[in-house]
């Protein structure tokens, strides 16, 4: 049995807003074939299990229901590895300016 997540825990819920097949008429074909999904974070109203439907209170006090997907979800965006195609630009333009200053 999965352990219950405590009341008041910051979680992310997920739900399908419009299933594939019920999308707006103007969407392109590739989008029509997938669902419109929603993810919102908030505090659990009552203890719940991961993967089960639960209710949250959002930061503005709205109550929303959805499947609990993440507990205390991390911000995982960052920078990643430096891009070699950008790394040399500074040296190149500084050399251009040096050349111009020496030439004048």
């Amino acid at each position: 049995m999965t352990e219950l997540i405590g009341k008041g825990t910051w979680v992310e819920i997920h739900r399908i807003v419009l299933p594939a097949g019920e999308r707006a008429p103007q969407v392109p074909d590739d989008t029509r074939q997938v669902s419109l999904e929603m993810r919102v974070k908030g505090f659990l109203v009552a203890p719940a299990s991961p993967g089960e439907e639960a209710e949250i209170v959002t930061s503005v006090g709205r109550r929303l229901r959805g499947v609990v997907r993440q507990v205390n979800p991390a911000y995982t965006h960052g920078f990643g590895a430096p891009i070699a195609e950008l790394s040399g630009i500074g040296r190149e333009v500084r050399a251009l300016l040096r050349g111009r200053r020496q030439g004048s």
Partner: protein
Amino acid sequence: MNSDSYQAIMAQRPGIMRASVGIDYAQYTTGVLAFDYERLLADTGYDIDATHKVQRTTAVGDTPLVELHNMTELVRAVAPPGKGARLFVKDEAANPSGSFKDRRASLSVHEAAKRGYPGVAAATSGNYGAAVASQAAKAGLGCIVVQEAFDSQAIAQPEIAEKTRACEAYGAEVIRLSVGPELFYVFLQVLKETGYFNASLYTPYSILGIETLGYELARQVKQHTGRFPDVVIATHAGGGNVTGTARGLLKAGATNTQMVAASVDLSGLHMASDHDFNRKSFTTGHTGFSMPFTTWPDRADVPRNAARALRYMDRFVTVSQGEVFYITQVLAELEGMERGPAGNTSLAAAFAIARNLDQQQIVVVQETEYTGAGKHPIAQLNLARQMGIEVTRGDPRDNKPGERIVIPEHPSQIAVVDVDLDHVRHSYLRNGIESLPADTMLDDVDIEFLAAETRSSRTYVQETIDEWHGKRR
């Protein structure tokens, strides 16, 4: 039909809009197409001084004007003799949430608080969400931001992920959606349920809030150099930046300044496509917004868009993704300013345009934006590679949106591509006529309106329409 179904909510759109914006747009209608644009703006009661006063209460605006001495020298290194205008940038990253969008949010949030709305909501995946959330935090109002944030593979656009974090940092509720225009349906549901103010990017408040930017920069340049700028370049998406800035310039008396709109070329990528979503390395300032909004502004989330860029632009240019990434790196390494990247679209254009102007002339890039995790060329190019896009050095003319990002090998390769404004005017007029039932007669006031909208003449509008009618017969 369920009262919350897509069809039911969309059918309630006019009522929800009216309640959430508090403007009766119908009263401004003057013809079958025409409406009184100036009165719509004037009725808000905000002139430059009143806007400035509100913005000072939350430390918005009065940002530094920075002369880019080293980049000017780099322009001159690749310019013909005697050419290479002085480059300046308005460092809008100095606003509380890190972009000029604070100016747009400030009046909306001020109005929402004044009129007793319990909170503000905005449909935006960009800097504007953080701006509304920041202003709302200061005003003690609730804030909900609805974003288009991830694709069907649950891959988040890194810049939008950063915006999610920023909005949440300011205490906002962030509704993250997958790709699709039905975001508007969710947004309407939120407005209906909460009774919040719709802090749309396209209300009069949002546009009037930007007028101070153009006004300030004109005065700063005049004070610093003794003359008004020759050219001001704005990154162009929905049209607010160009509209508000140009109006502010005019109000400061800079009537001879050329207003240039600059967008990143994302031609070929569909804005509502799940597949294309993460193959765009720019989330705003691109042609996916600027082309449709310039040629028909009233596709916005309010009945009448107060951003009407075609009225104000003297020139409309595009640059490639690779050129903007290149110039972002140059700005960091030559000027010590790590900003952007999306806001640097106008900087890339400025670099190219300044090359062909005289050395005493002045080109102003009217914004910067903060940079950080996700919101950075490195993050964008790593995602691009993950999505199978080629990233290489070479001739930027070989850029192909969604397939290849070419970082220039030399600053002399940075160039703008001019958008044919005559073609844009024709598209606008065609969209206008096609929005009406067949055989609708245009009144005199409509012809006048269309001439103002397209910055042309009554004769131009009449002849263009007659030409189509002739072809139809």
